[in-house]
Every structure is written in C-alpha cells, then in structure tokens.
C-alpha cells in the first residue's frame, strides 16, 4: 500500500519527456518532486506560470509568485507569466498534455466528481472543469477509499460531476487502473497489495487480467 508520496512517485512515471503538465492541489503537487533527472518537463500552474520551480528558500518568498494552490513558488529559467485567459487557452487548446488531479469519486465510465458535497462542502471547481474537459491525458491521483472506508471507484458518481467520460487512468494507494469500455481495468498492484484487496475496495466493475504486475517504484 502506497502513501501519498508513493502515489506521486508512481504518477511521475506517467510523465513523458517534452511534456507540459498541470498538477492539481494535494497529491498531484507532490509529483513534481519525483520526476526523474534528465526528463525535460515543464509545469503549468493555471493561475499564470509555465516553468514552475520548487518552493523558494526561506526569506525569498514573493507574494506575487504563487501556484494555483496559493503556495509560494519559484520560476525556472525559461519560465513565463501570463494572464488567466491565456492560461486556459493553453489548457482548453490542448497545449498542456497531461493533467494530474485529485478526486472524491471516479466512475467506471470515466466521470469524475471533485468539487462539491451538496449542503456540506462547496469550495468550487476552480480550474478542474476546464482541465478535465480539455486534456487528452487525464490521470487521477487519490486514495482508493474514503475516510469511511467506502470505495471511490464507483459504477456511477453520487456527487455532482466535474466532468464526463474524461478520466483515462487512476493511480491510488492500491493500484493503477485504466478506464475503458465502461470498466476499471487493473494494470498494476501496489507493493504488498493483492488483487483481492483491490477487488474488495472497488465498487465499480473491475476487469482483472490473468497477470497483474506489481508497481516498480
């Protein structure tokens, strides 16, 4: 079973050389720390930077330089700042090639819900609806079950949707799963996790191939 950094490490393997990548808040943000040396990748943050670097050294924080999670950041050589309309032109126009974001629920048809719990939590969708409606390549990073132990991989989402039929791959603390033909297809198991563990934690239809390799981290 993976912790959050483990999930981020596995997702970093999805990133290809030469890609522009948008990382959501939470686990996805950690992915940046696990990109292999030598891979040329640029991180976009939808509030208006491409070429985002690591957190600043203490004392060099700049209130005018933050990421979409409102964290202070730095800019790498070759970075560029832009306005929100241009930022979402990059996203909607499919110039950003990979989006990694968190979710409360994902359905077996690729629907995602991550912005609202009616009557309880209403934070807003931020840029998530634009991101999931646009990117060719959408990977969800999340725990396989919620705090109550209920599966977050469902036949249908119960919460208000963020996007429809858009998620291609889910990486959880238990497994890597692809979504196609209306089902979750088990691709890899987390170290020490059995197919039965995954089956028990997955409410949506799960297709298990004859052999399911363990993740190589």
């Amino acid at each position: 079973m993976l912790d959050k950094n483990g999930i981020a490490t596995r997702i970093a393997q999805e990133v290809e050389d030469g890609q522009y990548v948008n990382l959501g808040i939470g686990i996805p943000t950690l992915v940046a720390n696990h990109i292999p040396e030598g891979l040329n990748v640029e991180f976009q943050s939808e509030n208006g930077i491409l070429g985002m670097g690591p957190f600043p050294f203490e004392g060099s924080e700049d209130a005018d330089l933050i990421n979409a999670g409102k964290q202070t950041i730095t800019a790498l050589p070759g970075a560029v700042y832009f306005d929100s309309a241009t930022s979402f032109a990059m996203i909607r126009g499919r110039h950003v090639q990979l989006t990694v974001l968190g979710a409360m629920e994902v359905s077996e048809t690729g629907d995602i819900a991550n912005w609202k719990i009616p009557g309880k939590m209403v934070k807003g969708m931020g840029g998530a609806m634009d991101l999931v409606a646009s990117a060719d390549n959408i990977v969800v990073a999340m725990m396989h079950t919620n705090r109550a132990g209920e599966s977050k991989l469902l036949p249908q989402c119960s919460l208000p949707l963020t996007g429809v039929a858009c998620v291609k791959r889910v990486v959880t603390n238990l497994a890597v799963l692809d979504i196609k033909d209306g089902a979750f297809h088990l691709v890899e198991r987390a170290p020490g996790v059995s197919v039965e563990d995954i089956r028990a934690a997955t409410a949506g239809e799960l297709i298990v191939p004859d052999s399911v390799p363990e993740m190589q981290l």
Partner: protein
Amino acid sequence: MAISKLVSGVKEACKGVEDGMTLMLGGFGLCGIPENCIEELVRLGVKDVTCISNNAGVDNFGLGRLLQGHQIRKMISSYVGENDEFERQMLSGELEVDLIPQGSLAERCRAGGAGIPAFYTPAGFGTEVAEGKEVREFDGKPHILESALTSEFAFVKAWRGDEAGNLVYKATARNFNPMMAMAGKITIAEVEELVPLGTIDPNEIHTPGIFVQRIFQGDSYEKRIEQRTVRPHKN
C-alpha cells in the same frame, strides 16, 4: 497627447460606486488583489453588490472584508474554499453564489471586454454548470454556450502604471486583472508604482490604457501570503 486617467487617490477613484452594482475584482487568492479599493469599498459601505472575482479572499483580508460587513449579495467565482464566513453565508442562504469554471470565468470576462457576446466551451458539459445552457457538438464533442460578463466597475491591481492607464503586472499577480480591465465599463487601476509617461516600453505593456478609466498609486500594500511554502537553505 495621451489621455490622462490620473485621479488623486482611492477616494476619487471609487466615486460613483453604488449599492446593488456589479463589480469585478482582479486577483487570484490574495495575489494581485486591489487592496486599497477593497478597503475603500468597506469604508463606503456599499451594500448588495454582486462581486465577480475568482476567489472570495480570506476571513479578514481581500473580499473577506466585504463579506464581514455583509456588503455582498452575490458572488460569481470559481473557487471560494479559503473562507469560513463565506461558507457560512452561502450555506445559510444569505449569500447567493454562482460558481463557474475558472477558464470560463476568464474567457467570459475577456469576451465582455472584446465585444464577443457568447462562445462555446467544452468546460462544464454534463455538470451542474451546463444546466439551462445550450449544448452543441463541434467536431463530435459537446460544448456549452457561455455568455460574456461585464461590470459597472472593475477594480484591478498592477505593479506599474502610467497616467495613460498603461499597466504592467508582476509575475502571477497578473491573473484575472487584464481581462477584468477590459470588461469593466469603468475600470479603476491601482498600482504599486506610478511612473512618468513614456517610462514603460510600449512593447512591454500588459494592459493598454484604453481599457482603464482611472488610475492611482495605492498608499500601501500588505500583499499577504496565503500559503507560505519554503524549502530549507542548504548548509
């Protein structure tokens, strides 16, 4: 020859803002927000305003200041997650809230400023956001029709500006400011530094002065950081 937009300060800048108006406010979180104008709106005590702003500030800063005084009737935003008072007013029904995707919010403001009354976007199809909106397929993919946003006043904050209203923003403090400057019937720009006409290279201006009706240098900027994240110095 340049048309001067210079006003004496925040009080003159905010003249004419009245109860019930629709206001746009630039910024992302607390980054690049028009701090001086927000304080003046608190002082003026205008009520029942509709605020179009990506976020709603925090409890005691940014738009949170207007929420504290129950000055806002309706918020049009994309993300409002950092504000307990906001959540309380919304869940109790005191505050009307229209949540829209961030990219659609940015594009709707730009459209408002650019004379584009409506456009199609894939964002939000199949979600609550699409309710009541026209759906049309382009290239086999469903899109929804989104309309332009404009406002009676727009408040933007820039790093530098000149009396012609030309603006330069710094780093990610640019965010929604340029589009809102375009979309305001009266756009008020507050700047950290007012520089003499001709100082800013005409190649490097982010917001052309034609979009700005009033400009002034803010008295002071707190520029509060919401999430201070750092890495340790290597020793």
